């Protein structure tokens, strides 16, 4: 996942920066004795605006604790998958790397990752990890991805437009449609609710919210549920807002999440499904929006919270890591406690450790609390299959959305075609 969703955050700077490995002055490091070497780490660029400063601190703490040096390399999201594949091929993988949640099962299936269960058990932190991220990092009943951080999508709305139109943030689908109608009446030239055609993670909440499934595993066989009556109900509601209600725009038929963000930041959109990491980007793009938008969890059909994908990253240990205990010491340091909390605060994502989340949950910030509620009560994972990346590459769900939104196919046809394709690709047979 994650490539698309984090693109707005990725700084447009050079391809790969070598982080300062720092602490070169301190003696004692770099010796050849066991457990006293260098740990190479790949971290995705752009999640934390001050990643270098953060890792300077981590390096210092890591060296103090273990005597080993940390060699952090920052990798662009766009290049990362290819770099992983080539380094797997060449046997030059780092010891530890940040892996997007949908990549973890893929690399685990390829035999490149080391299972983490015994380390997690030894450290006694297994029960304190966020469920949705554990699920996404578990392949063949073994944990390959240590939950690090994640974000979640909720319904973000323009408070100024809502007040002007006299509508309330929705808690059911009927209310959502009423709100859209009210917004359209007040602002006929704006987009009441953005229904983007090329943004799969904005679709699944409606599938799940209606009681449908994206795909389920039975034995060894995946079956996509996108064409079940429940799923069609959800997809029909979401696309119907555009095709029947006319609450979206024709341009949105080909929009990605970045386009939604641009339009929302420009003040052209009443409400949209957007990520917990976007508020900062919205204000960056248009400072006038400061304080003029808020979020609510995505409503289920008749109330409650519709599940939404937890998009984030694991820290994974590669099989090539020579000193696996050292590698896990780093992973534990990063994903639990102080550094995990700091990373979350600096990057605007939620940490993967439950006990750290409690504090966030108590927040009253209208741009934190609803997301936190969605994160804890309505977090879900896309199908945890090594082939799910292939489904994403084929843009199966976007194809379905786009054909419905452009009027080329109805919900029944499009969802049936999508379900067939997804089932085929997930099972690795085309």
């Amino acid at each position: 996942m994650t490539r698309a969703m984090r693109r707005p955050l990725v700084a447009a700077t050079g391809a790969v920066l070598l982080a300062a490995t720092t602490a070169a002055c301190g003696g004692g490091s770099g010796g050849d004795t066991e457990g006293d070497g260098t740990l190479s780490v790949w971290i995705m660029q752009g999640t934390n605006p001050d990643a270098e400063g953060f890792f300077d601190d981590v390096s210092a703490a890591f060296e103090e604790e273990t005597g080993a040096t940390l060699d952090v390399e920052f990798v662009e999201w766009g290049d990362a998958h290819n770099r992983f594949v080539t380094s797997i091929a060449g046997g030059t993988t780092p010891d530890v790397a940040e892996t997007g949640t949908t990549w973890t099962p893929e690399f685990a299936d390829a035999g490149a990752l080391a299972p983490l269960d015994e380390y997690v058990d030894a450290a006694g932190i297994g029960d304190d990890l966020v469920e949705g991220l554990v699920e996404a990092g578990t392949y063949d009943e073994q944990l390959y991805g240590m939950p690090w951080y994640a974000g979640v999508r909720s319904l973000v709305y323009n408070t100024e437009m809502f007040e002007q139109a006299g509508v309330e943030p929705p808690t059911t689908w009927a209310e959502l449609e009423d709100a859209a109608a009210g917004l359209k009446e007040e602002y006929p030239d704006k987009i009441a609710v953005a229904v983007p055609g090329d943004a799969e993670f904005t679709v699944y909440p409606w599938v799940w919210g209606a009681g449908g499934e994206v795909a389920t595993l039975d034995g060894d066989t995946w079956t996509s549920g996108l064409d079940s009556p429940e799923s069609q109900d959800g997809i029909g509601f979401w696309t119907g807002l555009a095709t029947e209600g006319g609450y979206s725009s024709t341009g949105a038929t080909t929009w990605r999440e970045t386009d939604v963000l641009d339009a929302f930041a420009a003040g052209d959109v009443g409400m949209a499904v957007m990520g917990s990491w976007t508020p900062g980007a919205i204000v960056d793009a248009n400072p006038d929006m400061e304080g003029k938008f808020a979020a609510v969890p995505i409503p289920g059909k008749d109330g409650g919270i519709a599940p939404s994908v937890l998009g984030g990253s694991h820290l994974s240990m590669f099989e090539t890591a020579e000193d696996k205990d050292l590698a896990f010491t780093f992973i534990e340091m990063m994903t639990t406690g102080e550094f995990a909390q700091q990373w979350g605060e600096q990057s605007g994502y939620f940490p993967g450790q439950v006990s750290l989340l409690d504090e966030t949950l108590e927040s009253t910030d209208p741009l934190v609390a609803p997301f936190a509620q969605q994160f804890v009560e309505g977090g879900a994972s896309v199908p945890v299959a090594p082939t799910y990346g292939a489904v994403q590459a084929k843009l199966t769900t976007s194809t379905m959305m786009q054909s419905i939104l452009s009027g080329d196919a109805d919900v029944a046809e499009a969802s049936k075609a999508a379900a067939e394709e997804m089932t085929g690709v997930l099972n690795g047979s085309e």
Partner: protein
Amino acid sequence: MRPWLLLTPALLVLAVLLLWPLVRVFLFSLQDYGLREITTGEPNWIGTANYAEILTSPELWTVVLPNTVGFAVLSVVGTVAFGTGVAVLLASLGTFWRTVTSSAIMAAWAMPAVTGTYVWIWIFDADRGVFNDVLMGTGLLDEPTNWFTDRWSFYAIVLLNVIHHGFPFVAVTVLAGLLGVPKEMLEAAEMDGAGSFRRFFSIIVPQLRQVFAVVIILSTIWDFKVFAQVYLMPGGAGSNRSVLNLGVWSYVESFGQNRYGFGSAIAVLLTLLLLAITAIYVRTVLAEEER
């Protein structure tokens, strides 16, 4: 013997840099080669199954190939015609204006494909694009239209983009040829009463046959392999299946799915196809030359 001796170092370098990768691609194309094979390093031979899958894919025959071939024909014709027109214009300009015009052309050429594509996307953007604005301002259109969802309008935009990016090369190359056409021949023809069209088609074009051969072959190869200009367009990355072309299709089906063997097979077929086109074209040119 000696010529071969002298050529050996160059041939060795070529063999290592070109031939070996080609052989590897061919060997990959006979395997089901994915991430797992990469990690284990073990081959996974499946014979010609990749080729069979490609050649029996309905999507290839009904969507991908028609889009690719149709687009290549139109864009080669468009690029060469427009480029030649600009070359004729340049040839008739004085030094100052020729410098000004060719600098402007060079700017279009120097623009990276990615940047250029985004500019065209902005121009045709449904909500804020200048094209829809003008159409709606003049009353030709009541509501904004999304030009990227329709196969024909999608490729019309790609065509503009590719011609805009490709014509400078043709213009500059043809201009070089034009300047080499003997003035005496043109003057003699003019004395005999040939008009400018007659002079162009009866004297200049035959003189430039080889130049045209080069630009047409190169344009064909480039336009067959168009990727970024389609992939980056809204819906072009695969969510609009009716606009898939060979470049995007092979990327999505092979690299997107970690099926490197399948991708290699597509690459082998594409190479053979382009070799065939080139061979046929070179033969026709040579045959006419001999006549």
